[in-house]
């Protein structure tokens, strides 16, 4: 996997990863994606720890974050990011299966930039992911210190 990408996808479910990549492929954004399978790995990536020790010193342009994650859950990752001076500028989009209002309120309180519930319908799902990818990785001007479009 490319260690330099504009999109950090934090998702433990391989099937979801596959469907997400499938959706992003249509805009050729799939190779921009870095996948972390749990919260711990996501933080390792952001803090250049473990296997991400030697990656380039740049932040992703956007972070797509699932909430239900092994080890460190999505809300904890979000809290860590938003309380770190160096990371808090990274746009974070929560991408979750849940309609739980509790999760949504907690996410917004922690400063999430967007909250998206994955639709069951594949077309809707693909559309949502595509729009997200295009908006955050292409249209949106990321904060300084982020990975730039190549």
């Amino acid at each position: 996997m490319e260690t330099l990408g504009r999109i950090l996808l934090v998702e433990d479910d391989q099937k979801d990863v596959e469907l997400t990549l499938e959706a992003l492929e249509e805009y050729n954004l799939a190779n921009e994606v870095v996948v972390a399978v749990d919260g711990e790995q996501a933080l390792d990536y952001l803090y250049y720890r473990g296997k991400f020790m030697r990656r380039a010193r740049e932040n992703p342009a956007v972070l797509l974050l699932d909430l239900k994650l092994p080890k460190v859950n999505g809300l904890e990752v979000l809290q860590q990011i938003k309380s770190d001076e160096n990371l808090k500028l990274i746009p974070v989009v929560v991408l979750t299966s849940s309609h739980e209002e509790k999760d949504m309120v907690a996410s917004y309180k922690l400063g999430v930039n967007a909250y998206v519930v994955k639709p069951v319908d594949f077309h809707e799902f693909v559309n949502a992911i595509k729009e997200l990818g295009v908006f955050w990785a292409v249209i949106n001007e990321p904060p300084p210190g982020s990975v730039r479009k190549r």
Partner: protein
Amino acid sequence: MNPSRIDASESVAYESSRPLRLTHFQRYGLAVFSVSVALAAALFLQHFQFRDAAVPLLLFACAISSWYGKQGPAVLAVILSLMGFSYLFVSPIYSLRVAPSEFPYFVIFAAFTSLISWFATIRRRVDDDLRLIRDRLKVEVEERSSLLDLTHDSIFVRDMSSNITYWNRGAEEFYEWTPKEVTGKRSDELMSTIYPKSLEEIRAELLETNKWEGELTRTKADGTQVIVASRWSLRRNQQGHPVAILETSNDITVRKRREKEIQTLNHELATQARLLDQTHDSIFFRNVNGLITYWNRGAQELYGWSPEEAIGKRSHEFLRTIFPAAVEDIDRELLRTSVWEGELKHTKADGTEVVVASRWSLSRDDQGQPIVMETSNDITERRNREDEIRKLNQQLSNRAVELDASNKDLEAFAYSISHDLRAPLRHMAGFAELLCKSAAASLNEKSMHYVTMILEAANRMGSLIDDLLAFSRIGRAEAHNSLVRLEQLVQEAVSEVRQDGNERKIAWKIDPLPEWYGDRSMLRLALVNLISNAVKFTRTQPQAEIEIGCTEHKKDHVVLFVKDNGVGFDMKYSNKLFGVFQRLHAQEAFEGTGIGLATVQRIVHRHGGHVWAEGIVDGGATFYFSLNKSRGAN
């Protein structure tokens, strides 16, 4: 000694016989004078030829001299008489010599004069002795009467016609008349005496027994009325005739008043006791030793002991009192504040225990002894009920804790469903779609149909899960009440439903609706559900009519309805309308999860109302729901 005192003795006669007190000169002068007068008178009489007047005159002069002048003047008068007689009347005249022939006459004269003088002197001595004895007697009597004056009892004497003859100092002090003022007055008129019985009866008793005792009401000099205890004794003379009544009396006005007060108090006490008996509260008194002194009917009813059984018993032991605190502390508080209130346990006559709310108040009886009034009423039942309520409350809070726990479980369950169940569905749908896309060319129609079925099933499962979660969320979510403009809310719901629905011709009728307190988003959801139902089930009608209105609008109660002219329903299934997953139509005819109306019901229940429906098959349906302000307004 007060000279104005009245003597009991009859001494008035002696007063005038007291002789003149004369000096020596006067006494001897009297002798000379009287003899001279006698001689002069004799000479005067002789001159007018009266015979022998000299001797009696001289004897008279001697007698006067010896009576008033005593021995000395008497002797002088005798000597002067003899000399004057011999000089003037015995021959030889004008000489002191006495002729022998006259000698016997002269001696007899001398002897006679001496004899008269002697008699006068003796008489005089006797007289003096008598006076001395009388004086002594008087002193003695006065001493006795002064003894009577020492007593503060009033003593007076009256004769048989009630005239006062003696009045001691006690009487003066008490009745406030001086002896002078009362002497000779009729005692009963003076003091307006009121007798306890007729005076004749009293007199009869007095004459028979020589004494009488009784209580008299009298008026003093200053007009105040007094009550006296009076004792009379009758004095009789030697012949046994009644002569005087001695009356001793002492003032018992204050004592009588006390007696009367006590009588009044006793009467009041009896009245109070009767009143105390009227109450159903238990009231008893106990004295300083803790002994019961009074026991009312309420106490008898409560404890089952009669007053006869209870009075005289030590109350705490008798009732086997169980105190809420140390009895010493309770007594201390009672002494300090005169009042104590608390709950006690007592044991009744039949051995059962009662809990009483007891009030003790401390007062003092007429002897100043502390006395405690204990008023109690039976609160056993109340206490038992309170215990029961407490137990029920405990159970309730246990249940609440359990409920809370199961709610938490439910929440976790729902959370898990919304995450974990939806993901595989999404994957099924996603990969089926991908399969469809990549193998579209190689799949025949039948295979395509299967893929389509898989996709439909997944989508349906997805909406089932969504509805179910929404439904369970209503149960768990907190209501946020505010003033909601129902009419506006209905408009919003209608436009939301119309957005989703395809363009159909529907005649909407929205009546004026009030403002109401409630959770805006919940009420909106309920309305959306009902209105989308109406839209859905009027699909078969060429001209759909939907009306939203209000049938009842009271201060704390409102009933809304959503009425359509759709397919309606059979009233015998109306009980199934609001159950979860209950459906009255085939999925093919009218799609749906069977959760919409259950959700409506849940929302309405949370607003303290209820929901019901009326319908006819192919005749339309009306869904009513009520909202209560009491639940919604807080």
